[in-house]
C-alpha cells in the first residue's frame, strides 16, 4: 500500500495505517508527515476534556453530528487509558458514537494512552496531523477522563471545552489549580439533574477571579443525550475562535504550542539515544554500582552520562 498516495487520495485505510505507524514510532511515518506538513493547518482543533463519566463522548458525538449537518468533515481522536500493568486497554468511546460509523464524512480513531500521563497519548499529535492532511474541517480530541492536573490538551487544541456535571464537589474544587484553569468554554452536562444551576454558578464564581478582562469563558448548561444546548455550544466555539483571532492571542498561543512541540520531539529523541546507550553499553549499570559503593554521587554520575551522550552524538 502506498500510504502517502492513499492519504492524499482520500483513502481511509491509508490514513488509518499512517496513524498506527505514528503510534508505533516508525520513521517512514515521520517522513510522510514531513513531506505533507505544508498541508496542515486547515482543521480547527477542539479539545473535549473533563472527569470520567461526564459525557465527553456523547458531547463529541452530538457536536460532530451538528457539524455534519453543515457539511463539515469531522475527525475524532478519542483517548482512553492504557493499563500500566499489562499494556492493554479497552477503548470504548465509539460506543457513544455508533451512528457516526456509517458516515463517510467522519473518521474516528481510538487510542490508548500508552504510558503518557497528561490525559492524551503521545501519538495524538501525529494523529491530528494525519487527519488535518486528510482534509478534515474539524478535529475533536477527547481526552481520557481527567482528574485535576492532566492538561496536555492545551498543547494541541484551539478551543478547550471542559465538560462537568452537577455534584462533583463543592466550590473549593472549582478554585483548585489545574484542569479548571484550561477551559475556554465550560459545559455543565446532564443539566436535568439537581444542582445543575448551582454547579454553573460555582464555576461562574471561580471565573470571577480571572484576570483576563477581554475573554471570560462562558458557562453553559447542556443535556447532550437529548441534544439540548449543542447548537449553542457550537456558537460559543465559534465566538471563542473569533476572539482568539481578533485579539491576536491565537498567534501567540500557536507559537507557544509549537515551541512545546519542538521541545517534546527533541526530548523524545534524546531519550531514544539514552535508551540505546543504556542498551548497548554497560555504563549506566557501572555508574549505579559506583553510586551504590559510595565512590560517586548520583549528580556526578549524571554528568558522566552526559559526557557519554555528547560523545555518542559526536560519533554519529
Amino acid at each position: 500500500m502506498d500510504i502517502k498516495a492513499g492519504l492524499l487520495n482520500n483513502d481511509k485505510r491509508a490514513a488509518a495505517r499512517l496513524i498506527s505507524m505514528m503510534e508505533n514510532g516508525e520513521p517512514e511515518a515521520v517522513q510522510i508527515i514531513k513531506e505533507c506538513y505544508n498541508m496542515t493547518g486547515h482543521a480547527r482543533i477542539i479539545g473535549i476534556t473533563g472527569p470520567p463519566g461526564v459525557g465527553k463522548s456523547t458531547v463529541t458525538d452530538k457536536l460532530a453530528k451538528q457539524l455534519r449537518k453543515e457539511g463539515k468533515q469531522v475527525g475524532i481522536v478519542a483517548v482512553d487509558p492504557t493499563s500500566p500493568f499489562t499494556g492493554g486497554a479497552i477503548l470504548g468511546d465509539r460506543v457513544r458514537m455508533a451512528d457516526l460509523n456509517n458516515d463517510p464524512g467522519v473518521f474516528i480513531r481510538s487510542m490508548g494512552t500508552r504510558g503518557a500521563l497528561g490525559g492524551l497519548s503521545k501519538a495524538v499529535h501525529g494523529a491530528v496531523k494525519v487527519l488535518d492532511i486528510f482534509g478534515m474541517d474539524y478535529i475533536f480530541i477527547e481526552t481520557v477522563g481527567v482528574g485535576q492536573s492532566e492538561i496536555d490538551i492545551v498543547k494541541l487544541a484551539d478551543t478547550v471545552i471542559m465538560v462537568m456535571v452537577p455534584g462533583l464537589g463543592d466550590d473549593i474544587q472549582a478554585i483548585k489549580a489545574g484542569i479548571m484553569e484550561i477551559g475556554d468554554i465550560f459545559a455543565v452536562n446532564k443539566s436535568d439533574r439537581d444542582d445543575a444551576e448551582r454547579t454553573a454558578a460555582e464555576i461562574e464564581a471561580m471565573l470571577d477571579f480571572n484576570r483576563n478582562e477581554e475573554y471570560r469563558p462562558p458557562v453553559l448548561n447542556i443535556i447532550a443525550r437529548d441534544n439540548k444546548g449543542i447548537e449553542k455550544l457550537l456558537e460559543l466555539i465559534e465566538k471563542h475562535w473569533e476572539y482568539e483571532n481578533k485579539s491576536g492571542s491565537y498567534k501567540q498561543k500557536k507559537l507557544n504550542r509549537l515551541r512545546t512541540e519542538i521541545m517534546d520531539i527533541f526530548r523524545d529523541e534524546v531519550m531514544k539515544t539514552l535508551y540505546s546507550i543504556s542498551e548497548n553499553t554497560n555504563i549506566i549499570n557501572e555508574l549505579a554500582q559506583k553510586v551504590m559503593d559510595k565512590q560517586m554521587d548520583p549528580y556526578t554520575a549524571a554528568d558522566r552520562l552526559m559526557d557519554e551522550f555528547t560523545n555518542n552524538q559526536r560519533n554519529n
Partner: protein
Amino acid sequence: MDRPIRVVVAKPGLDGHDRGAKVVARALRDAGMEVIYTGLRQTPEQIAETAIQEDADCVAMSILSGAHNHLFPKVVNLLKERGADDILVVGGGVIPEDDIPGLIEAGIAGIFTPGTPTSVTIDFIKNNIKRK
C-alpha cells in the same frame, strides 16, 4: 512485536446480550491488547468501517441470536471489498457445530463456542494475525 495488537470487539445483529463479548474484551485487555469496543447492534458495514478506521489487526464478533451464517461472512466480504482482507476475523457465541465448517469456508478464521477458555482465543489471535 513491540506494538500492542488491536482488536475490534463487536456485536453484530439484534441480540442484546454482550456479557460474553465484554468478558472476552476484558481478557484481551489483560493479555496486553488494545480492544476497541463498539457496543451493541452493529451492522456489518459499521463493523467493517470501524476495523478500517481503527487499523485493527483482528475483528472479534459475538452473536447469540442465530444470525451468524449471514452476518459473519458479510463482514469478511466487506473487508475484502475494501482491500482489508489482512484483518483476521474470528467469531463466537451460540454457534451449532454443523455451522462451523461453512463459516471457516467463508473466511472466518476461528469460531469459539461457549466454554472456550479465554486463553485459547488469546493464543489464536496472537498466532494468526497477519500483520507483524
